[in-house]
């Protein structure tokens, strides 16, 4: 019996595994189809188009890697990439840093209704249409706008300016809009992570006489590394691949002071109608994002393990 059963059991086991895997594939098939249709197919077509000269309607002409060489001649391309990295400070470092502090304070101090209200208010920019937000921020930051009126009211007339039209201040101003949009997202994500931290860690620390700041550094931050990694990943991508916030506030101006690769891709594709060039720049931008994101992912996974 034993000798007869041996060859049968592995065969059954293999069949079970295969059946389970097929069932598993069937479960994810709808999502996979959607993902393939809306992400993978456009992605592959973008790569394909990057090797053609094409205006979106007429005949396509194979040009090999010429688009990748030509796109380097796009005006101020290096400057736009520099702007994107500068935005990382505003879109990523500040929202994540500030988000950690605010989430920690809300978690520790304002656990009741006030905390919920604060969380909602801070998260609200995520649900406001960005175009509407861009118009409102445009008014606020205009020369006759509310921010300059407030500065004048407290005697700081010398500081008033057209914030979105000033070569030195346009990018930080757009960055402030980015903080306003992304801070709520970081707070909600980090606070969710805080809820998973065992309260006994904090109790032990308090028994040992640790201050709030020591608890924050020794317990909260290390145990939130995974959530911080997610926040960093999402916000760094938002900075490097930025388009919407810039487009609705400055459209890349003044000069090219707030221009980023995303704006250039849009202009190349939809104004200049050079789909091949735009695709080449999009592929290069994607490679840049991956190069920056991979170390963050690797570090946070290591930490999580």
């Amino acid at each position: 019996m034993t000798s007869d059963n041996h060859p049968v059991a592995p065969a059954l086991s293999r069949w079970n595994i295969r059946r389970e895997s097929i069932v598993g594939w069937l479960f994810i098939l709808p999502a996979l189809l959607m993902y393939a249709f809306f992400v993978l197919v456009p992605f592959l077509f973008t790569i394909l188009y990057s090797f053609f000269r094409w205006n979106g309607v007429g005949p396509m002409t194979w040009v090999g890697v010429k688009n990748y060489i030509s796109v380097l001649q796009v005006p101020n391309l290096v400057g736009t990439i520099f702007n994107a990295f500068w935005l990382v400070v505003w879109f990523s470092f500040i929202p994540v840093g500030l988000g950690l502090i605010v989430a920690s304070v809300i978690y520790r101090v304002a656990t009741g209704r006030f905390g919920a209200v604060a969380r909602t208010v801070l998260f609200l920019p995520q649900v406001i249409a960005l175009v509407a937000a861009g118009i409102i921020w445009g008014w606020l930051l205009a020369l006759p706008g509310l921010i300059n009126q407030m500065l004048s009211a407290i005697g700081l007339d010398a500081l008033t300016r057209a914030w979105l039209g000033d070569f030195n201040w346009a990018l930080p101003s757009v960055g402030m809009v980015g903080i306003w949009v992304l801070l709520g997202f970081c707070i909600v994500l980090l606070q969710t992570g805080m809820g998973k931290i065992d309260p006994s860690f904090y109790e032990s620390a308090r028994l040992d006489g640790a201050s709030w700041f020591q608890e924050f550094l020794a317990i909260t931050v290390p145990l939130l590394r995974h959530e911080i990694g997610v926040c960093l990943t999402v916000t760094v991508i938002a900075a490097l691949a930025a388009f919407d916030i810039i487009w609705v506030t400055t459209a890349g101006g003044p000069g090219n002071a707030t221009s980023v690769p995303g704006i250039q891709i849009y202009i190349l594709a939809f104004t200049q109608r050079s789909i091949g060039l735009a695709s080449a720049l999009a592929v290069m931008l994607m490679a840049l994002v991956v190069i920056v994101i991979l170390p963050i992912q690797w570090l946070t996974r290591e930490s999580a393990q």
Partner: protein
Amino acid sequence: MNKKVALYWLISLLILASMLLSACGGTPATTVAPVAPVTEAPATEAPQEAALPNCGTDPILMNVVFETGWDMPTQLTEEFTKQFPNVTWNISMEQFANLITTTPMLLSSDNPPDLIRLPTMVSFAQDGLLKSLDEYAQAFGWNDWPVPQLNQNRLDENWVRGSGTLYAMGLNYSMTGVFYNKKLAAQIGMTEPPKTVAEFEALLAAAKAAGLQPIMEWGSAKSGMGLAFPLQNLMAAYGPVEPINDWIFQKVGATIDTPSNLIAAQHLQDWIEKGYFPPDINAIEYTDAANRFGNGEGVFTFNGDWQNGGYDAAMSGNVGFFLFPPAEAGGGYAAMSAPLTYGIAAKAKHADCAAFFFNWAATNETARQINVDGMGSNPGGPVGASVPTVAAGSVTIDTLAAGPLLSGAMDFIANATSSIFAQGWTPELQKMVGGQQDAAGLLKAVQAEYLRELSQ
């Protein structure tokens, strides 16, 4: 394990391959042959007794795309239906900026528009998406209309604008120049429009000295840089218009970096440095500038007659218009004057009716009146066409009166290539405002961008 992995990959590849194949089937055609002018009447129309193309007597639903923000074309369609009740209209409205991206898709769709506002023309004609209007021009006698009306919409065999096949028509013809606030102008001693650039600059200096905003203009990248208007006016004052049009029409060897254009750019730089424009110009959008001028901020503003209605509403009886003066007294007047361009899709179902509409809009007395009432621009048409009446006190009286004074008409330097405005003029002029660019550098940078775009 290897077999399992191989199975996963096989399934994934099969899914992807099927998606790719289906997606390939849905992509725009990669070869679109230019379509020859259609001569046969649409199937829905009965043979006409008259030789001229028309809308027939059977019910026709015209599929049209107009520009958001302007009611005049819609008012024309309403009047047209009153006169030709068998024609009704399916009107879609698009923002001008959206039209730049959506027009190729609309023109190449299975139900292309019979009539569409064209943001640009050359590339659509090249791709065979626009119907040639030559036969209609011949039939209706449009070729006998004053030449400047049609030549901006003609393309030669090398796809250079200015002559050749007609691919679009203007519903009207805009006029640009200098609008002024009459009360503020009187305050600085202006009794009549300046006759030279020097006289105009003296008025600017007087306005500045009086603590007024000399010129209100827009400059945000979101609207595109409005300083291109005074710059081009200065170019036409200090040099001939032909080289400027050659550059706009992309004639071989054309350049914007000429000695006379350098003088023009130096004058503009001088105006910027003297504070004749608002300090926040780089953040001012078009509508903000129009509103601020309407509210009395600015003695002058450079704009076109499409804004007549807005200015009349905001400052009724207090707004005037003059053509930008020449450099020397007695010199000719030049201005940017472009058609409000509409085209017919190559595959339009009711092309004859659309062409008939073009002819009707330019020749019918009521249509011409609606045109002028709605936008204030010249409705064009044949020599001797009816002259619409204009309400007393309207600035439209000034803009229409300016037409006969013109000795040179130009298209806009912002229209030379599809993205010269976004990638060239706007950022470089913004830099000039910010003190980061000078006159010579401006022209060199824009010419370099022009050549870069043409090479692609």
